[in-house]
C-alpha cells in the first residue's frame, strides 16, 4: 500500500478553524474553560487551537499540557520503553470545563489514561474530548469524541499520521502502512 494524503494543508486549516468555532459555540466566553493537550502529539493540535482561539476571541484562555505516560495500561507490554514527557498545568482545574485535545483517536486507551492523569489535578465540572482524526470502529474502550476534525474508516493494518507545519514542514494527514509490531 502506498501512503496517501487524506487531508491537505488547505482543508486542514478549514478543519482547524471549524473546530475553533465549534468550541466558541459551546464554551461561551471561555472564562471557565481550560484547554489541555495530550502528550506527545496532541500538543501540536492544542497549541494551534489555543493560538487560533485567542486570535479570534481576543481572550486569555487557560491552557495546559498533560502527559499520560505514568497512567498507561500497556507499560509492561509496550515494545518500546515508555518514557515520560512534560506535564504543565499551572492553574486549578477545579470546577473548570476542560477540553482534552489529541490528534488521533484510535483505541481510546491514551484518552483513558489522560483522563485519569487529569483527575489527579482536581475535579473539573466537565471534561470533553476534541480530536483531529476519529478512526471509527477501532475503539477498545467506550470513549467517544465531542468534537471531530475528520472521521476515517481505515484498516487496523494502516496507521494515521498527522504532519504539523511546525515540526514536519506542512499540515497534512496521511494514511500509511503500519510499522511491524504496531497494532
Amino acid at each position, binding site marked *: 500500500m502506498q501512503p496517501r494524503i487524506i487531508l491537505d494543508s488547505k482543508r486542514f486549516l478549514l478543519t482547524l478553524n471549524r473546530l475553533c468555532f465549534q468550541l466558541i459555540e459551546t464554551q461561551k466566553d471561555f472564562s471557565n474553560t481550560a484547554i489541555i493537550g495530550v502528550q506527545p502529539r496532541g500538543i501540536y493540535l492544542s497549541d494551534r487551537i489555543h493560538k487560533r482561539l485567542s486570535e479570534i476571541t481576543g481572550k486569555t484562555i487557560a491552557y495546559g499540557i498533560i502527559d499520560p505516560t*505514568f497512567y498507561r495500561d500497556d507499560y509492561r507490554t509496550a515494545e518500546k520503553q515508555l518514557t515520560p514527557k512534560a506535564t504543565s498545568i499551572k492553574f486549578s482545574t477545579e470546577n473548570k470545563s476542560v477540553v482534552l485535545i489529541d490528534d488521533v483517536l484510535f483505541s481510546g486507551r491514551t484518552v483513558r489514561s489522560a483522563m485519569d492523569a487529569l483527575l489527579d489535578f482536581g475535579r473539573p465540572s466537565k471534561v470533553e474530548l476534541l480530536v483531529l482524526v476519529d478512526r471509527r470502529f477501532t475503539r477498545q474502550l467506550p470513549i467517544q469524541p465531542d468534537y471531530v476534525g475528520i472521521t476515517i474508516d481505515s484498516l487496523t493494518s494502516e496507521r494515521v499520521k498527522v504532519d504539523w507545519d511546525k515540526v514536519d514542514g506542512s499540515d497534512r494527514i496521511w494514511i500509511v502502512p503500519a510499522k511491524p509490531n504496531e497494532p
Partner: protein
Amino acid sequence: MNALSVKHLLGIKYLTREDIEIIFESADEFKEVLNRPIKKVPSLRDTTIVNLFFENSTRTRISFELAEKRLSADTINFTSSGSSVKKGETLIDTVNNILAMKVDMVVMRHPSPGAPVFLSQHINASIINAGDGTHEHPTQALLDAFSIREKLGKVEGKKIAIIGDIRHSRVALSNIFCLKKLGAEVMVAGPPTLIPMYIESLGVKVEYDVRKALEWCDAANILRIQLERQEIQYFASLREYALYFGVNKKLLDEIGKDILIMHPGPINRGVEITSDVADSPNSIILDQVENGVAIRMAVLYLLSGRKEV
C-alpha cells in the same frame, strides 16, 4: 528515547552516559509529579519491591520507600537486625525466600562491596544498589549530578571537588564515575591518608589543600568522615581534621566566590563542614534530598518497565 541498557542498577560504572541522561529526563517529570496536589502515579501498582537494609540508613531508606509509594508499588522493609540473618542464613537464601513470595524488585544496602553484583548473578529480579560497603552508591551520585545540573544548568565542563574521606566513601567513587561520564572535571581533596593511591587513574585531579580545591571548583561535595569504617587512625583528631580540612565560612569568605555546597548526609556539623556553611544560601543539601526521591522514582520506573530480551 530508548530504554536503559542495564537490567539492574549495580553501580554507575555499568551505566552509559545515555542511561544517565534518560534517568535525568524521567526524573524531571517525576519532580513535577512530586509538586502536584496528588503526588502519586499508578505506574508500578502491579509491582512489589523489597527494601533490604543490612546496614543503617535514614535518608536513602526513606527516600526509596517514598519513591516506591509515590509510584504505587507495594513495599516490604527488611532490616538485618531482628531477622534470620542473625541465625546464620546466607544472603542468597534470604533473598530467594523473599522472592518466593512473589517480589519483583530488590533495593539493597549491604556492608560488603560487591554484594549486589554477586546477588544479580544468582537471582532474576532487578536489583538496585542502595550502597555496598565502600564500593558504590549509584542513586546518590545520580541525585548529586542531577542537583548540579539543576543549579548550574549542566554538568559538562563544570569543576566539581569532592572533599573529605575519599578512601571509605562509596559516594565518592560513584560520583567520580557519574561526573566523568557526564563530562565534568573532578578533583578529590582531603588528607593524604584518606585519598587512595592511584586514584588519578580514574581521571581525577588530587589536591591535599582544601583551600586550593575550593578556589578551583564550581561545586564542592563535602563528605563525612566515616569513622565506623576506619580500622586504624588516619588523622590525629577530629579537631585537627576540622582545622585543616573542614569547610567553614571564614575560609569561603576569604576565597570570595560562589561555590555550590553539597553534602550527601549525614552531616557531622563542626567536623567536615560548619553549620554556617551547611545552612548558607549556597548550600543545596536539602535540594539534594528532595531530588533523591525523583531520581529514585525514575530509576525504579525505568528498570521495572524493561522488557526481558
